[in-house]
């Protein structure tokens, strides 16, 4: 019980002192800012956010401010590298499908995607040299 009373006393005193000190600091800062007034054009929410991000980025280097960083591959964000990899694979597959012979239905050939050569041949076959109406 004695401990509780002492603890409560400490809490009231401690918080009172912290509030009083910081209130005094607030008053002093207001005075400094009043004496050193410099108007500034109003800032939009987006501009303010960008400015705050810049400040936060510097403070991120402080010890005790580390947040888990996004993974990187050779300095590039890992999700960007993954996106580039998927796009490259897709492009490679498309090239292979387009270059495959018509009769090759197994990998990497396809019945859906004829090669450019075959497609050109089909187009020639479908084109009639006979003049219309004859």
């Amino acid at each position, binding site marked *: 019980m004695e401990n509780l009373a*002492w603890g409560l006393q400490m809490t009231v005193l401690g918080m009172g002192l912290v509030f009083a*000190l910081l209130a005094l600091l607030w008053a002093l800062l207001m005075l400094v800012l009043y004496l050193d007034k410099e108007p*500034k054009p109003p800032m939009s929410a987006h501009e303010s956010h960008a400015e705050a991000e810049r400040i936060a980025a510097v*403070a991120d280097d402080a*010890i005790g401010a580390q947040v888990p960083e996004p993974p990187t591959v050779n300095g590039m964000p890992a999700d960007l590298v993954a996106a580039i990899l998927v796009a490259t694979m897709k492009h490679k597959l498309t090239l292979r499908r387009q270059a495959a012979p018509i009769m090759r239905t197994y990998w990497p050939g396809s019945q859906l995607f004829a090669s450019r050569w075959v497609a050109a041949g089909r187009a020639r076959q479908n084109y009639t040299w006979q003049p219309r109406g004859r």
Partner: protein
Amino acid sequence: MIDHETIGLLLKGINNVTWQSIVMLGVSFVLMYLAIVKDYEPLLLLPIAAGCMLANLPLSPLIADDGMLKLLYNLGVTNELYPLLVFVGIGALTDFGPLLENPRLILIGAAGQFGIFLTLILALLIGFTPNEAASIGIIGAIDGPTSIYVSGLLAPHMLGPITVAAYSYMSLVPIILPPIMKLLTTQKERQIHMAYSSRKISARTRIMFPIVVTVLVGTLVPFATPLIGMLMLGNLMKESGAVERLTKASAAEIANTVTLFLGLAIGSTMVGTDFLKPSTLAILVLGIIAFAVDAGAGILFAKVLNWISGGKVNPLVGAAGISAFPMAARVVQRVAQEEDFENFLLMHAMGANAAGQVASVVAGGVVLALMGAGG
């Protein structure tokens, strides 16, 4: 021939393995996992884990009287040199501009220190001595160097668990804060937009700020002079722009070297026989209570400000009144944007967060003054 004595000497290490040392090696591996895999405060947790591992190996010469870890401990922990040098680096990396644009936010920082004192009462009720209770309460400052400084003066035997708790909870801010914020605010409150200041902070004011804070706090709470003095020295070097080399060195080389020494020294205090006690568990639990109460008090105080201002203050900003700068502010922004994508609170949250940084140092000094130590 190899005699029994030689065999005994060869097996001396294995013979001196204790269950406490095995458990502590496990603890060091968990800390290494958190630092390396989870990326939680790696700069400090990895050296702490390494110090813990090295100190708990059987008959470790590193923690003997002339061992390296003991020397590092005596070099900068017993005399509080390391946390103060870390503070110079933090000051050199902190921009107090958001606080200067909206100085009333400093009161949110004050409210965000309530957890320190509530935890002090809880720790007293559990049976800790007043000095130990104050050291545990200071975990609520959510400020590593302040926790180390205060507990190093009041309860040096509890430095290990208090430091681990302080830095672990700091790294868990993105996980611990959001549920508290959502619990204490309504959806409507989380959607409140805050107006922006049209005040330009001149270079003169930025330079005057660290001087004014140091003189004011140092005069009224001399116990806080080392902490606030070093924090503001770093900031003065940064804002003056006159000593760029010193600013860079403080923020990088010096801070990194000191962090390595500090981590190893703190880790070396985590020797199984001293660390594995019920009091360690109590410290970890009380630490998280201190953290939660701090954040809650900040939010409730911001609610009061919101009521006084007629709905112009988003209570989420109050959660940034703790010291974890700028992580807490980022979490506030993230939670606010979950409710309304067009709500940009980061600048206000950064102001409250910078206030929390100053307030935690002031609170540390006030605790030392009330306990009559550290002057």
